[in-house]
């Protein structure tokens, strides 16, 4: 699988997640076991009306989506892996009016569990939040073939 295919599959997957689509999440770069996703700024997701900073919940959704989607970039075949847990550390509120980026990597893959790390940041590399997550491997047969074909383009 090359990086272009990884990126396309990650975006097709994100497209099927209604909330991710509503937030306007887009995967913009992919590598083996790594993925970069952008969250555009929107006034609709402000958590602090005084400052215009977006709510931590939108950052959590960005990081959960990126950490879940990076799995596509790490496995040979598509598997839907539910989140077991997430731990998010908030370093700094996101600056209003600017997109937030999340880069995730898988750092350990076992037959049952996938361990991920993710950093959310803005331009100039200011870290907004860090997140570690674990995802459960329930097997590729746990998702219908039609859905797997939708993500892979029927290539698996």
């Amino acid at each position, binding site marked *: 699988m090359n990086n272009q295919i990884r990126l396309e599959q990650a975006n097709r997957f994100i497209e*099927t*997640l*209604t909330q991710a689509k509503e937030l306007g999440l887009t995967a913009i770069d992919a590598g083996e076991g790594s993925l970069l996703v952008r969250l555009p700024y929107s006034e609709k997701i402000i958590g602090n009306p005084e400052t215009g900073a977006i*709510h931590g919940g939108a950052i*959590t959704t960005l990081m*959960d*989506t990126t950490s879940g989607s990076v799995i596509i970039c790490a496995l040979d075949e598509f598997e*839907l892996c*539910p989140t077991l847990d*997430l731990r998010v550390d908030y370093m700094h509120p996101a600056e209003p009016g600017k997109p937030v980026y999340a880069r995730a990597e898988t750092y350990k893959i076992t037959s049952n569990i996938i361990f991920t790390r993710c950093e959310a940041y803005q331009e100039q590399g200011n870290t907004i939040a860090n997140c570690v997550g674990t995802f459960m491997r329930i097997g590729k047969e746990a998702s219908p073939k039609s859905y797997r074909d939708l993500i892979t383009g029927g290539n698996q």
Partner: protein
Amino acid sequence: MIDPAVLEHTQKTGDFTQLLEDIPYARWIGLCCDRFGDDLIFRLPAKEENLGNPILPAIHGGVIGGFMELAAEIYLILGQETLRMPKIVDFSLDYLRAGLNRETYAECHLTRQGNRVANVGVVAWQKSRSKPIATARAHFLLEG
């Protein structure tokens, strides 16, 4: 984050309409809150836009996290006598069951309140309280 007059009104009447109306993210996911005596129950009505996994279908894990995070913030703000804005430091979330496309509830408890830091636990459930879909804990800095 919250207008002191709105907070006072909410504390006095238990009517969360204005308070939640003022937080765009609360409207975005559709968070509601009801007070029963001193207890607060947070509610997230079923909403297509909140879904993630399309196969089940299930609520996006990030939305469940955002719901619980916002619930913990509001719970802390309401429980204080003076208005101090909680600033989230960290958030740890365990997913226990799929959150199906139906109404979700959450309740918070204050595990420990120090001078500057509060530790809040949150439990979220759907059909039955005895079958939580997620548990979380968060640390908040309280700044005067």
